[in-house]
């Protein structure tokens, strides 16, 4: 009985951490777009589509605690992670630029997409998605072992 509670507590904490990361990423993206006026490129939009709902889904799963929220949030996180990875590869020039699906508007390989002078925004996104995927996978594993 005590062990189940501690596993639950730990799961809650991991989901909470994932939620914090998603929240920070969401507000960060909104700050860039709405306050600083940086236009999101097409790939950025796909990553937003994956990231924004994670904040809501995990929040609902945290109060009251319901670890099934991982089932719903993890696919979004994985999908977002894949787009972020693709975006980073484009950004670094690993994938040739003519494959970029962005026509008009902001370019996905814009060098200006750099924060604090050296951190590319796509990399931040990849890091955020990676953290969310890792944290939620831990919860999934723990609940299986239970």
């Amino acid at each position, binding site marked *: 009985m005590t062990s189940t509670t501690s596993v639950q507590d730990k799961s809650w904490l991991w989901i*909470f951490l994932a*939620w*914090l990361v998603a*929240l*920070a990423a969401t*507000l960060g993206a*909104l*700050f860039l777009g*709405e*306050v*600083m006026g940086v236009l999101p490129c097409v790939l950025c939009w796909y990553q937003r589509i994956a990231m924004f709902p994670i904040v809501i889904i995990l*929040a609902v799963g*945290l*109060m009251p605690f319901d670890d099934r929220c991982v089932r719903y949030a993890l696919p979004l996180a994985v999908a977002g992670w894949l787009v972020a990875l693709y975006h980073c590869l484009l950004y670094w020039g690993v994938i040739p630029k003519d494959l970029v699906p962005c026509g008009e508007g902001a370019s996905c390989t814009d060098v200006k997409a750099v924060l604090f002078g050296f951190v590319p925004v796509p990399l931040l996104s990849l890091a955020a998605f990676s953290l969310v995927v890792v944290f939620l996978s831990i919860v999934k594993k723990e609940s299986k072992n239970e």
Partner: protein
Amino acid sequence: MLVMSAGLLALVVFALGAFFYTQQQTRQAAQLAQENRAALVRPHSPAFGNPGAKVTIVEFIDPACETCSAFYPLVKSLVSGSFGQVNLVMRYAPLHKGSDEVVRILEAARMQDLYWPVLQTLLKSQAVWVIHHEAKPEMVWGLIQETGLDVAKARSDMNHPRVAEIVAQDIADGKTLKVTKTPGFFVNGKPLVDFGADQLKALVASEVRSAYGK
């Protein structure tokens, strides 16, 4: 509880960040305009209203921009209702595709002293000649004929090298002043950073107060 407070904290951080960022941007824009006063008004710029007015609204306009069209009656009334205290200087920021050609048509109309009527007609009929955010200069001629414009003369005047110089100078000045959106307003050199009709009215009113006293 923890979730609520963390969420709240994140929102507060966001709001504070937005507030300070906007403030800093406002200061920077004001400073930029201060340092580049020469770029605000050029001798070639079309002006409306009392030339001796102590308050000058500089508007960077794109004739194909919807918000410019929506703001035009307000801007005009700020000048005409000011008893000669406010005048208006037009600068061009043709950001829409094809818009620079329409600007050249406007300059050709100026040579026939029909600048303001043609501008008004253009803004009013914008829906006809701006299609999917792209200006179609060829569709303009039929619309502005009603102002009494000599179309044949205007068609050749718009290719005058002086017109191209004016447009190039305005685009360069817009870049210097970081006008990335239209309409871009400056009132006595102060940029309208927090954009809106009420904000513009307030800025003009405060400049009139400081120029003419109560």
